[in-house]
């Protein structure tokens, strides 16, 4: 069963984004995603990704390509790439993290979640609300109560910026 896949080199896959754009990538690149890997193992070569938009998919394919060619010598290069990769707006990061979660790319998930966590950890609750587009659903009294109950967490100055 598996012998046919072994003999062929550079097997290609087609990924279709939610905007119906199609991308051709090497199978070896694609299988870093568990979701794609499972489909490939079931014999699929055409992978519709109804939850991943073109913009995110392009970035993610870039990421997969870079990481597929990981060797000892380009370690530094990949690090630079990763750093660039996450150097973007929160909204982009959210798109990417949803896509990475859907595609089950754990190293990317890890990097994105850590980046988001690192970037919000010094923020004020107000800034976090804006960043996550959340409307505060507390009454002022309720909020004051929570602040009081966790007073030690509100000591000091917090970052109000949204980037």
């Amino acid at each position, binding site marked *: 069963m598996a012998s046919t896949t072994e003999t062929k080199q550079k097997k290609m896959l087609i990924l279709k984004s939610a905007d119906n754009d199609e991308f051709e990538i090497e199978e070896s690149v694609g299988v870093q995603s568990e*979701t794609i890997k499972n489909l490939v193992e079931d014999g699929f070569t055409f992978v519709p990704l109804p939850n991943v938009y073109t913009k995110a998919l392009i970035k993610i394919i870039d990421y997969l390509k870079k990481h597929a060619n990981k060797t000892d010598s380009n370690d530094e290069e990949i690090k630079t790439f990763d750093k660039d990769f996450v150097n973007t707006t929160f*909204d982009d990061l959210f798109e990417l993290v*949803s896509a990475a979660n859907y595609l089950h790319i*754990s190293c990317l998930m890890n990097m994105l979640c850590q980046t988001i966590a690192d970037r919000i950890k010094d923020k004020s609750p107000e800034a976090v609300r804006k960043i*996550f587009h959340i409307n*505060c*659903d*507390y009454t002022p009294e309720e909020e004051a109560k*929570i602040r009081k109950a966790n007073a*030690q967490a509100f000591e000091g100055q917090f970052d109000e910026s949204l980037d």
Partner: protein
Amino acid sequence: MEPLSLKPREKEELFRDGEGMDRDFEGDGGSSKEDLEINLDNQIREGYLFLSVMRVCVCLIMEVPKPVWECVVTPSNKTNHIDIVGQNNTAIDDDVSVETNLLDSFLETFVGRDAAASAKALVLLEANSGIEVCPTLFKKWKQLRPLTQKFIALIAELKKTNEHLTINGLNRAEKEVKVLDEENDASEESSDTLIRPYKKKKHTPVSGGKASSTKAVGIDFQEEILRDILSRLPVLPLLRFKCVSKFWKTLISDPYFNMKHQRHHENDLNSQKLLVALDMDSFFSSSSLSTVQLVDDVQNLDYPSNFEPVDSCSIYEFAPGNTTFILGYDATSGDYKIFKPDRGSDDIDLPPSYEILALKSGSWRKIRNYPTRVCPRTGYTLEICPKFDEDNNTEPLAFLHGAFHWLGFSHRQYSMVSFSSSSDNVFRETSIPELPKYRTNNTWKFFYGVSVLVGMLCVYSTHYNLQMEGNFKLWVKKDYSVEESWTEILLYKTSIFVQSYQNIDLQMVNCYSAADRMVVLYLGHPEDHLDYGLKLISIKTGSFIQKA
């Protein structure tokens, strides 16, 4: 928006809207659901109804978040469900219980209540024990909710039917599957045409470079992703973010989240529990930080034997009464253990020993069997215990990978000794980097120590004289299981520290771990017990690994 009326509609959709179903379902896939999805994937052809049920059940199984609805409706349509929960919790609870009951009786009809169904489910779990969740579910079967049990039984039933088909007529089954597949594709096509314009519209502002505020990105986030992000935060920001919204508060206070948070920070134990001696008359206490209930959860502990408390308070690893204690989390028993070495006494022929306290039992246990080594020269057998000073204080110990570690000293030689916290009396002796050989005399002093840095075991040495000359060296063991992976990563001339502290000679350097990739050095003077503060050295991830 009309939050409450939204609920029933979505519920209907969940069971009726077949086309959207499998994409919805897949869209829900978090890594922990992966295995189930694989199983489920085979079942898609069994019909959308089952799938709908499973989707609900998978969510229930994957569990815990309190507003069950949050799970069930994590939708592909981008509704603001965070708001929904905030609106009226009681009404939602009612909805949930109605739904739970419906689902319960539905499952009962299909699976049956009898022991046979249970047995099938257990067989399935056992047969798939290679899949991470299965053994856990198997073990906890009795505690699982009936609903969860039934759901697993349903999967077992379906799986069996599938196998049955395969055995009885592979070709026929394959043909059937093909037909269903085609139907599936066809319906996907048609649903695509329906969905496309909707999505296009939604997406346009984003591809235009800026997310529109109506898109409310945070909201179509799956709960699991949010949980993943939050679990990486230290305790204080978490507490602070409780006031972001009611939903966040629910999420952060959730026991499942705490477990995840704890697991995430397992290697960073100083963020987990705090071991403090409150004051002279008070108790030796352990306070939990991991449960986000900073002040409420203080447990008073007995004193170990031969222990005289003094007024002293420090974090994680400290020396009240000049005795070293170390706190560690034993993942096997899910309990915290406190370890205290004792050097014994030559006068009354008391051999070195240690005491260990399991937080759950709350009492100290004295154990007298340090590993021993026979001296090649004299033939004496000596314990390899931590090196004690005159005050029964040891150089720092470290806790990592479920074991307490120290530099054992015997026959003029250091070695790394570890003691597993889970199974008592298991010692291991492993290699350490070649430490610089210093001689202690009146002018030169040295200290060695062991600590944890960014989840890696590390060893350091400090060497100095009264003229403030000397150095500090730090090694890490990059791979815990590989003896050769010791790597020197830092060499500091001690005068660097001394410069900023003028006139104070560096007497002691302790190295602590910290989550932010910092080395914390403690400057102090052991003789007059003065603290000169902590010095932080930041280690960039890049250069850290680079040094290899």
